[in-house]
C-alpha cells in the first residue's frame, strides 16, 4: 500500500485564542473522494484551507503526497518555507471556492490560462490548447471570450473547476462548491465533479450535498466543534449514524 495522498495527524488551529481545530486526524488515499460534513463553524473549511496553506495550522502534522505543507523538517525542527516554495507546493493542489472567485477582469479563457502561463511557465499556445480542452470537458466550449460577470453561477463554478484542473493538480479541494448556487444550477456542477471523481482524481469536498456524499464519496468525515465525531463509509454512517450529534445533524439537513 502506497502512502496516502493526504495525511493529517493532530492538527490544531486557533484564531485569537479560540480553538477551531482541536486535533484532527484524517487520511485520504490516492484516487479517493472524501467528503467533510458538519454544521457551520465546525472547522471543516478551516481544515481544507490548512491543506493548501491558505491558513497556517498551529501544530500537528499535515502532509500532502508525503511532503509537509508549508514547512520543512530539518534536524528535528520545522522550518517555515519561503513564499516561493509554498507557492510551488500549492500549484499542484487545486482549490474550488464557494463564491467561485474567478478573476473578474479576465475572460474565461484567460482565467484558465493565467496560472499555466505565469506559474507553470507554459507558452500561450499550449496553455490555450489545454484551457479549451478543459472548458470543453466542463461543457463551456463556446464561452471562452465571455467575462465571468456574463455567466451564471453554475457556469462560473465550472470555469473555476477548469481553472484548477489546468494546473495538473494531484489533489483537488472543494470548499462548499454548490452552496452559493441557485438550486437548479447545483446539478450541473455536481455532474462535473462526479465525472472528475470517475477519472480517478483525489478529491476532498466540504459539502452539504448528502446525496453527492452518499453516491460519490469513498469516505465521509463528520466534524463538529473542531473534532472529527465520526467517519467511515458514507453508506454506513449516513444511514446508521452511531453518534447523537451526527444523528441530529442529519435530521436537520436531510
Amino acid at each position: 500500500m502506497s502512502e496516502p495522498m493526504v495525511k493529517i495527524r493532530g492538527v490544531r488551529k486557533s484564531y485569537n485564542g479560540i480553538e477551531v481545530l482541536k486535533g484532527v486526524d484524517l487520511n485520504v488515499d490516492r484516487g479517493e473522494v472524501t467528503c467533510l460534513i458538519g454544521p457551520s463553524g465546525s472547522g471543516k473549511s478551516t481544515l481544507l484551507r490548512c491543506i493548501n496553506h491558505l491558513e497556517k495550522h498551529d501544530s500537528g502534522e499535515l502532509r500532502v503526497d508525503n511532503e509537509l505543507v508549508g514547512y520543512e523538517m530539518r534536524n528535528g525542527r520545522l522550518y517555515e518555507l519561503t513564499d516561493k516554495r509554498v507557492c510551488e507546493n500549492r500549484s499542484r493542489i487545486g482549490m474550488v471556492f464557494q463564491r467561485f472567485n474567478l478573476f473578474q477582469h479576465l475572460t474565461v479563457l484567460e482565467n484558465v490560462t493565467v496560472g499555466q502561463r505565469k506559474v507553470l511557465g507554459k507558452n500561450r499556445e499550449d496553455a490555450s490548447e489545454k484551457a479549451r480542452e478543459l472548458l470543453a470537458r466542463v461543457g463551456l466550449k463556446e464561452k471562452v471570450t465571455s467575462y465571468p460577470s456574463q455567466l451564471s453561477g453554475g457556469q462560473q463554478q465550472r470555469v473555476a473547476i477548469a481553472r484548477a484542473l489546468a494546473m495538473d493538480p494531484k489533489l483537488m479541494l472543494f470548499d462548499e462548491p454548490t452552496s452559493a448556487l441557485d438550486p437548479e444550477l447545483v446539478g450541473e456542477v455536481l455532474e462535473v465533479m462526479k465525472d472528475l471523481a470517475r477519472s480517478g482524481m483525489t478529491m476532498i469536498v466540504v459539502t452539504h450535498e448528502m446525496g453527492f456524499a452518499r453516491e460519490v464519496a469513498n469516505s465521509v468525515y463528520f466534524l463538529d466543534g473542531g473534532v472529527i465525531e465520526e467517519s467511515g463509509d458514507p453508506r454506513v454512517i449516513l444511514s446508521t449514524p452511531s453518534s447523537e450529534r451526527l444523528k441530529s445533524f442529519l435530521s436537520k439537513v436531510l
Partner: protein
Amino acid sequence: MTTNGDATVKVVPVRHYGRWVGVALVGLLLAMVVHTLFFKVASAKMVCHVVSGARVCHHAMVFRYQWNIVGQYFFTSEILHGLLRTIFLTVVAMVLGIVLGVTIAVMRMSPNRVLSSIAWTYTWFFRGTPVLVQLLFWSFIGAVYPHLTLGIPFLHVTFVHFNVNTSLTIMEACAIGLGLNEGAYMSEIARAGLISVDEGQIEAATSLGMTRRQTLRLVTIPQAMRVIIPPTGNEVISMLKTTSLVSVVGVIDLLGAATNIYSENYEIIPLLIVASLWYLLVTTVLSIGQFYLERRFARGALRTPPPTPIQRLRADLLGVGSKFRTRRGLEVSP
C-alpha cells in the same frame, strides 16, 4: 397590449409644469451670461467724428471682457512656453506621485510593522504641511544641501554625489516637491483601490500558486484600477492647477507668463482669461482621456460597457427624433 376596440390606447405622459418654469428661469440666467460675455457695451472712452462739419462724440462700444485682446495674446510664445512648463510640471509630478503612491500603499499594507509605520509617517508628513510651504522649502534645498551624497551614514561610504546648486534647476526642484506631496495623496487613493479588491480574488490567485508579487501585479492592481482611476483623474486636474503655485518661487508657468505680461501692459482681465482658457482646454483633454481609460479598466466588471460620448450623442439625437414622432403620446405596444 391595451386595446379599446380595434384602436391602440395611447398613454399621455405627465406634464411637469414645475420643471418648465425651472427651464425658463435657467434660460433667462443663461441669456444674461451670454449677453454680458459676448455683447459690446459702451465704455468710458469717448470717440469723436466730424459729420458734415459738426463734431459728434459718443462712447466707444467694447467687449466687457476684451475678447480681441484675449485673442491677441492666446498664442504668444511667452504664454505657450508657460503652458509647456505647466504641462511638464504636471506630468513629472503625477508620474512621481503615482509611483510613490503605489509603493507607499503597498508598504502601508505590509505585515512588517517597520514598513507600514514608515509609510504612515510619510503620508502624515506630506499631507500635514501646506504644499506651498513644501515648494518654498524645495526651492531653497540648495541652501540646506549644497552637495547631495547618497551613502551609508557614519561609515563614510558614498554611492552618489552631486552638486545641488549647479545640477538641479528650480523647476526640477518644484517638480520633485509637487511629486513628493502628491505621493502622499496618491498612496491613500491606491490603498483604497487595493483594499476594494475582494479577498477571494487574492485567495484564488494564491491557490493557483502565484507569489505575492504576481498576485499584486496580475490580479489585485488591474482590478484596483477601476477604483483608482476616477480619483486619480481628479488629482491630475487638481495638479494641473496646483502647479500655478510655482510662480511664487519664480518659475514662469502659464499663470506666471500671464501675470508677467499684464504687469507690463495692465490688461489684467484679458490675460487672466487667456490663462483660464488654456487651463480649461487642458482639463477637457484630460477628462476625455480619463473616460476612455476608465472604460478600458472596466472590462469584465460590467455586463455592457458604458456608451462613449459619441455613441450617447447619437442615441440622444435618435431619441429626440422619435420623441417628436410620438409627441402626441407614447404608443403602448406589446
